[in-house]
């Protein structure tokens, strides 16, 4: 089961420029939450703060609190590597390890964590590829083909399988289907819908129809602030804030 995420007074900076302002958000466990907003509104920065990816960039700084289940993400005693194991991430551009086989791509995280037993690895690789809805397409070429030899949509599902292999509780997705054709996008969306039974999913998307299709909750960001956060159905039919309405109806700017 996924766990809830409790974000309190989260602010983020690049150097002196503040890019997130006092974000408060309670993300429901085992649900899909979409983050929408115009380019530069801070939505990618926001999800990168949830698993401490933001701090990997030069001059980047964060204040506030993020709790993922019982894990205090920004506690000084919490190791970033442990946070990122419990909170997986999938990026806009699929980034499989190009020279590794499909099998090794999925097993990479496990091996880094000291997993060595062959039959256990086999089991987790199969389960992860099954959950990512890729198993049937690659089961016969697991060790023969490299990750880079797959199509764009398959590569993205491979990255999802790789993220799932280390048994995270939360899956963050940053524009996971923006570079994919409609059929591959449909598969990823179907997958997201299924994944929420086991994981808490947070997805950043520019595609509002996609947010409407896959998310239970949606947050609208504007200039680093969370303007509105509510059930997706409410956001896309009767938003409370005029700025949300202007953005989703295309009257913004």
């Amino acid at each position, binding site marked *: 089961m996924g766990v809830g995420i409790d974000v309190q007074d989260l602010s983020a900076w690049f150097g002196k420029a503040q890019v997130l302002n006092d974000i408060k958000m309670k993300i429901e466990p085992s649900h899909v939450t979409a983050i929408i907003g115009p380019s530069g509104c801070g939505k990618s920065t926001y999800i990168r703060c949830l698993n401490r990816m933001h701090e990997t960039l030069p001059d980047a700084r964060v204040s506030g609190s993020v709790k993922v289940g019982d894990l205090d993400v920004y506690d000084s005693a919490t190791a970033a590597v442990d946070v990122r194991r419990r909170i997986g991430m999938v990026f806009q551009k699929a980034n499989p390890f190009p020279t590794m086989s499909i099998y090794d791509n999925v097993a990479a995280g496990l091996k880094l964590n000291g997993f060595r037993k062959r039959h256990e690895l086999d089991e987790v690789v199969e389960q992860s590829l099954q959950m990512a809805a890729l198993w049937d397409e690659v089961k016969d070429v697991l060790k023969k083909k490299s990750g880079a030899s797959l199509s764009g949509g398959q590569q993205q599902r491979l990255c999802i399988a790789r993220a799932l292999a280390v048994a995270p509780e939360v899956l963050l997705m940053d524009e996971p289907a923006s570079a994919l054709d409609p059929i591959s996008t449909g598969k990823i969306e179907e997958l997201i819908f299924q994944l929420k039974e086991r994981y808490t999913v947070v997805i950043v998307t520019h595609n*509002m*129809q996609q947010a*409407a299709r896959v998310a239970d909750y949606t947050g609208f960001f504007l200039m680093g602030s969370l303007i509105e956060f509510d059930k997706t159905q409410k956001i*896309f*039919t*009767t*938003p409370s804030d005029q700025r*949300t*309405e202007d953005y*989703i*109806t*295309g*009257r*913004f*700017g």
Partner: protein
Amino acid sequence: MKRTRFQQGLDDLKQKLLQMGGMAESAIEAATESYLQRDPKLCQLVFEREDSINAAERAIDELALDLLAMQQPMAVDLRFIVAVLKINSDIERVGDQAVNIAQRTMDLLAGPEVAEIPVDIGRMTATVSTMMRRALESFLSGKAEVAQAVLEMDNIVDRMKDEAFVILVQRMKQDPDRAQAYLDVLLITRNLERVADHATNISEDVIFWVRGADVRHRVGLDPEDRPAMPQ
């Protein structure tokens, strides 16, 4: 990122629906006038107008579907188009009620003359026309409070119809030779009451579009705004 073409499509939809509403409103007035004046030419006019109303209904449905498919509207725009689709159907049925009234009038004119029918169809028509006009005004202006006022008028028309029923049924018993004529008048009051229901539906759809609140069957209204239920 203003969506000029989309906005033009929405404006066009509104314009077309208002034109159709105007046609239906004048059809009702012509139909009841044909009854009041005993004028078969006016009945003919109502029958001819029905085709225009039906054609307008199809054109509006097509444009609304195009906008839904091509522009993927959200929030207030989505509510607007959904409201238009429903209002479109209600207006077309108002046109049908006008035809029904004209048909009853033709039947009345074909039958034996009835000296005096103690039901004020003129007054009932005035109330129903006011409801239709205000419902369409609320759609034009996007003023939910105007639509709300229409909801409160529905009970008045219901009472008029109930009173007419009592009187006309009594007349049928007293004067069975002219029962058919009384029945025709009774059905006209029923047609007018249905027009009031359509005006109420249109007003509810305007409130849904403007406020995002579903007030059908009076469930979404604030208790203070809720009209008194008939005793």
